[in-house]
């Protein structure tokens, strides 16, 4: 019998290594046009089309009810006051919903509230275990470090797609490289990205309960992003390529005047191909949590079910039997039994 973990771990690993080999062999066979121009444009097209397709698919699902998963007091009697935190946790108005969404999108608030349940040795009864719930912040820290490092890395890459390069890219460049060690200067975001993604991978491998629920679709994006980071770091610090030629190629793509530029090392094409695969894979994978977080019904709706009526669009007509109809039917028997009636006849 095939081991579940082996199947779901080694198949995506082999897939990513296979992609590296494909790019390597392709460039050795002088397919620079394919890997430098055709594949990037195709990946961008698949990314855009897939994104629009998935969002239209999502928007065809009705969200008839509010789902107030909340940790705070709902609107109640006027003398029960709510402070700002409670207003953000249980928003009544659009303004506070925007606040809750901002915290969710920019600060990963839901992950910050992550708790872990564990059996720990009880200090009072060393022979027994005690079930404890504790606030577990490491996942939040790994996730937020990973996402912001990735954002900085992507924004830094704007220097290849713009001419002249906007000022904030220079600012980012100097802040990111402010330790000024090694030549070229080591970017901290690259290291943070690698360490954080490595942590996110290791927690899936090392924790048995996470390994049990981790699928190929969880490992593949991690391997892909890790391999992109590793090839990028190798290219910047160790197997250098002609960076002016790289920008020439990138600007050609960005201005829709694509050209094949000679003399770029093969590691660049491996890096680019892996990025293209990531873009093409994005709309059909768990990475769609990026737009999905904006559409979370538990986060993006005001908890106003107590004072606004939300009608389910697929409610079937319910056959009501009103009290007036009931009385019409049993009036005579009710009068006979001295039961008070609203209408005498």
């Amino acid at each position, binding site marked *: 019998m095939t081991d579940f973990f082996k199947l779901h771990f080694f198949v995506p690993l082999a897939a990513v290594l296979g992609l590296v080999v494909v790019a390597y062999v392709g460039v050795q066979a002088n397919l620079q046009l394919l890997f430098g121009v055709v594949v990037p444009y195709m990946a961008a097209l698949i990314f855009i089309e897939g*994104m629009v397709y998935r969002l*239209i698919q999502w928007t*065809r699902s009705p969200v008839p009810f509010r789902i107030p998963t909340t940790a705070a007091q709902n609107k109640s009697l006027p003398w029960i006051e709510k402070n700002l935190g409670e207003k953000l946790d249980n928003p009544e108005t659009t303004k506070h919903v925007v606040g809750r969404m901002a915290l969710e999108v920019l600060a990963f608030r839901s992950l910050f509230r992550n708790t872990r349940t564990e059996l720990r040795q009880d200090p009072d009864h060393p022979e027994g275990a005690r079930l404890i719930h504790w606030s577990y912040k490491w996942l939040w820290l790994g996730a937020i470090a990973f996402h912001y490092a990735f954002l900085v890395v992507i924004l830094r890459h704007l220097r290849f797609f713009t001419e002249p390069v906007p000022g904030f890219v220079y600012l980012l460049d100097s802040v990111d490289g402010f330790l000024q060690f090694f*030549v070229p200067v080591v970017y901290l975001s690259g290291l943070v990205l690698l360490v954080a993604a490595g942590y996110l991978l290791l927690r899936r491998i090392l924790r048995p309960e996470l390994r049990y629920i981790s699928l190929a679709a969880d490992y593949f994006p991690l391997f892909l992003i890790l391999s992109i980071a590793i090839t990028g770091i190798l290219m910047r610090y160790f197997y250098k390529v002609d960076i002016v030629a790289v920008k*020439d190629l990138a600007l050609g793509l960005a*201005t829709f*005047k694509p050209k094949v530029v000679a003399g770029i090392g093969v590691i660049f094409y491996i890096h680019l191909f892996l990025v293209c695969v990531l873009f093409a894979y994005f709309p059909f994978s768990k990475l769609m949590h990026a737009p999905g977080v*904006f559409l979370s019904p538990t986060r993006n709706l005001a908890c106003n079910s107590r004072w606004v009526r939300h009608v389910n*669009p697929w409610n079937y007509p319910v056959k009501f039997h009103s009290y007036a109809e009931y009385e019409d039917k049993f009036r005579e028997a009710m009068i006979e039994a001295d039961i008070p009636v609203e209408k005498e006849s």
Partner: protein
Amino acid sequence: MDDKYKNEFGVFAERPKVEKKIYDGKYIFLGLIIFFAVVTSPLWQNLGKAIPAPVPKLDTPAIQKLAEKDRKCVQPLAFMRANHMQLLDTWRTEVVRGGNRDFVGPGGVKYTASLQNTCLDCHSNKAQFCDQCHNYVAVTPTCWGCHLDMTQKLAEAK
């Protein structure tokens, strides 16, 4: 029978008929438009323009004085294009920490390891040779924190 909900007491309802339509379309499309506007915004200013890559100029007086066969850098062109910063860093370490200014290039040719006296001797056009490409790829090397572009300073002194 299939389109009715069932429980252990039997059939109790028709399967709901959910209307096939776009719900909250204005938010979705607004979001999509904002997303693509933000993502493509860096590309608008140069859309459809052909931007030529900078070509370092090699027609300085010092290079023109050399015979055709002597017009060689301390390392081959492809190596220098990708790795010149590494070479300069090695030179700096060798000179500053080891006091060693001898560099032997390919073919056993000896050079003095010096940015100002060897590199800038031939490539006296810093603006066209160094800065042009550095600006193009938005790198700000720290060389010029200590080293001087001598040609400019001499011209000013005169």
